[in-house]
């Protein structure tokens, strides 16, 4: 039986969880608050060996510090746990690291998911609570034309969860050499001719760009575009990982290996290097890239958990997922289009614009 962790209030023994408003462990029943660091010291499960330090080195390959290993039982997809408070069966996936008991609502942490090689180095704790998430959701659907009315009125959320999403953070240096062709144009006229003078230049730029902690989400279940859309997370709130932060929330450990995520980070890094170099080419009327060579020098990679509020709603037989950055509050999510309203507006605007232009034409003729 894997070890399930539930945190109990030192005062009243109720289930205590991390409170984003105070950034401390807070008991929802008696209101006692305990600093996370303090808690950790008096926690019998605390293992000093778990605090690892990562050094940043320049090396040709990403430095992970150790290879990840899989325990045999973890190969199976679903796991069954037993809730310590009510004895109910908690069904978790192989990646679930923190979840709640469907019967008594108690939050439990699956410590084996977060031990050894699977242990995250950093975590950005939640800053915004569920209420903030719901408010953000309401403002998100407000004032959107062409949103179906029923969708707006329903305001129905199937599910809202605060999840710690696993991210691979890539740091390194990108170096680029780009050659461009630039043109300046000068135009003038005399009584007989219009002249255009074109001057052609050969332009070259080389430079390096330092990248720090490009995040790539390491959970298959989390849509990458959704996770990228709530970026950026602010590193200043990052702390050393402690399991206490997870209580009261859901969490996943990664299931996409770092090597696969690397490609995505590379893609973005290369584009940034190209943009940065191109920005330095100024003063031309026309610029085209002739040759581009960008190399990435691998730096280090870290594994961290970032806070995300996830909302699900179903409408018209389709599922709509919304996400809010649990730290900055940035809210994203695609909304459905009211086709009827769209076409009604299309016809109306066509006639209005057409009439205005027609009237304008008459005005020009008559003046």
């Amino acid at each position, binding site marked *: 039986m894997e070890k399930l962790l539930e945190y109990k209030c030192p005062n009243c023994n109720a289930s205590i969880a991390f409170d984003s408003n105070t950034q401390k462990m807070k008991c929802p029943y008696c209101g006692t608050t305990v600093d996370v660091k303090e808690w950790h010291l008096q926690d019998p499960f605390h293992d000093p060996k778990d605090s690892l330090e990562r050094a940043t080195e320049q090396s040709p390959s990403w430095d992970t510090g150790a290879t990840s290993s899989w325990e045999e039982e973890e190969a199976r997809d679903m796991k069954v746990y037993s809730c310590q408070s009510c004895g109910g069966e908690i069904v978790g996936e192989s990646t679930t690291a923190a979840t709640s008991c469907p019967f008594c609502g108690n939050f439990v942490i699956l410590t084996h998911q977060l031990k050894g090689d699977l242990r995250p180095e950093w975590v950005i704790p939640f800053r915004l609570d569920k209420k903030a998430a719901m408010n953000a959701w309401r403002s998100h659907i407000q004032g959107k034309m062409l949103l179906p009315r029923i969708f707006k009125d329903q305001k129905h959320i199937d599910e809202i969860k605060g999840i710690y999403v696993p991210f691979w953070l890539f740091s390194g240096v990108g170096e680029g050499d780009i050659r461009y062709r630039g043109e300046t144009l000068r135009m003038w006229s005399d009584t007989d001719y219009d002249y255009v003078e074109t001057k052609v230049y*050969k332009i070259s730029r*080389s430079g390096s760009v330092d990248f720090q902690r490009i995040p790539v989400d390491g959970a298959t279940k989390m849509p990458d575009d959704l996770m990228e859309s709530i970026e950026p997370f602010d590193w200043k709130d990052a702390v050393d990982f402690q399991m206490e932060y997870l209580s009261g929330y859901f969490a996943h450990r990664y299931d996409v290996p770092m090597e696969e995520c690397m490609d995505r980070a590379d893609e973005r890094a290369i584009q940034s290097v190209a943009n940065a170099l191109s920005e330095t080419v100024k003063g031309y009327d026309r610029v085209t890239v002739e040759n581009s060579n960008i190399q990435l020098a691998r730096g280090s990679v870290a594994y961290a958990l970032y806070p995300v509020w996830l909302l699900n709603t179903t409408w018209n037989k389709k599922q709509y997922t919304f996400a809010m950055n649990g730290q900055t509050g940035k809210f994203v999510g695609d909304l459905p289009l009211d086709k009827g309203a769209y076409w009604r507006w299309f016809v109306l605007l066509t006639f209005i*614009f*057409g*009439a205005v232009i027609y009237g304008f034409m008459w005005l020009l003729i008559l003046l």
Partner: protein
Amino acid sequence: MIKRIVTGFLIMILCLLGGVPVFGQPATYYIYDDTGILRESEMAKLDVLAVGILEKYGIAPVFILSESCNDKETADYAQACYEEAKWSEDTVLLVINEGKDEYFFYTTGRAEDFFKQKDLDRLWMVYDQEEHDYDGVEAYLNATEAILGERNAPFAAIGSAAVKNPSIPAERQKERLVDEAGLLTADEGSDLLEKLNEMSERQHCDVAIVTVPSLSGKTSTAFADDFYDYNGYGAGPARDGILFLISMEDRDWAISTHGYGISAFTDAGQAYIMDQVRPHLSQGDFAASFHTFADLSDEFLTQARSGKPYGEGNLPKGSVSHFWIFGDLGIGALLSFLTLKGIKSSLKSVSLRSNADPYVHGGRVNLTHSQDTYLSSHVSRTAKPKESQSSSGGSSTHTSSSGSTHGGSSGKF
């Protein structure tokens, strides 16, 4: 109190009416009478007399008998009448204000030289002497002729074509529509002729259309001029008119103007008319082209009477063709699509990021090498389209074989 208001109101209306010009009698040209003293037949006879004098001496003698001169000052009224009708550059006009028992002489151009104050007094005397108005006007006209004869007034100056050329008939010899090339059906022809006749009478200016199978070796301009002159076209003493000629042999067209027609139809104006007419000609739709020509001529003459004939910089305002109703709806649809596209995109907020800019340490690149090298340059030039030669904006004229001055233009279709 009420009486005063009513009276004041009536006076106001009368003052407004004072601005209304008097002309509404198309029957005679040089003799006017709104008091009803002179009979129509009498006025017609006097008119003929006046025309005769004008043709002989180039001076137009005009007589106006008015009940009240529209409550204007007789002198102002005389000037307004002249400006309205412009009988000739050289006119002697006698206005009698019956109500006020006043008279006024208004002379212009060479008439000013010929009719000194004592001459005008003499004219008045002969009119006043007679008992009946008809006799008075007749005497006035005869006296005018006598004075001009004494002065040996030479014939027409520039512009008014009272040149006595025996080969130019006084009366029009042909109809205003001559379709020798057979381009119109009988019905189309009669419709068109009716329109041309009505408009020519009304405007006191002949608008004629002639079609021929061939020019018999002449240039289209010469043919048109000669057709106009030797067939006696033209209204009034100056033989005002415009003639539109079509020759099918080489598909030539020509316009010939004379007298008032020269000023009414400027070069730019003629170009405008032909722009509207030519498409129909090219398509072979002659009835439509001639009707367009006639309608435009009517419009041009009306505009010219107001003092500002259509010309360079002053062309008739067209209208927006009906095609644009669809065109504008198309543009409207495009704009609508673009607007809604923008609104639709506000519904979408999820997408992959293209770059890692937020994670760039320091926010910019550390440039290690930057070089801009000048390679070459070249100059290209395009010729500017030359503006076509335009005349000073009026009407260009030439002299025809008969010696008279014509305006006009020509071309192919």
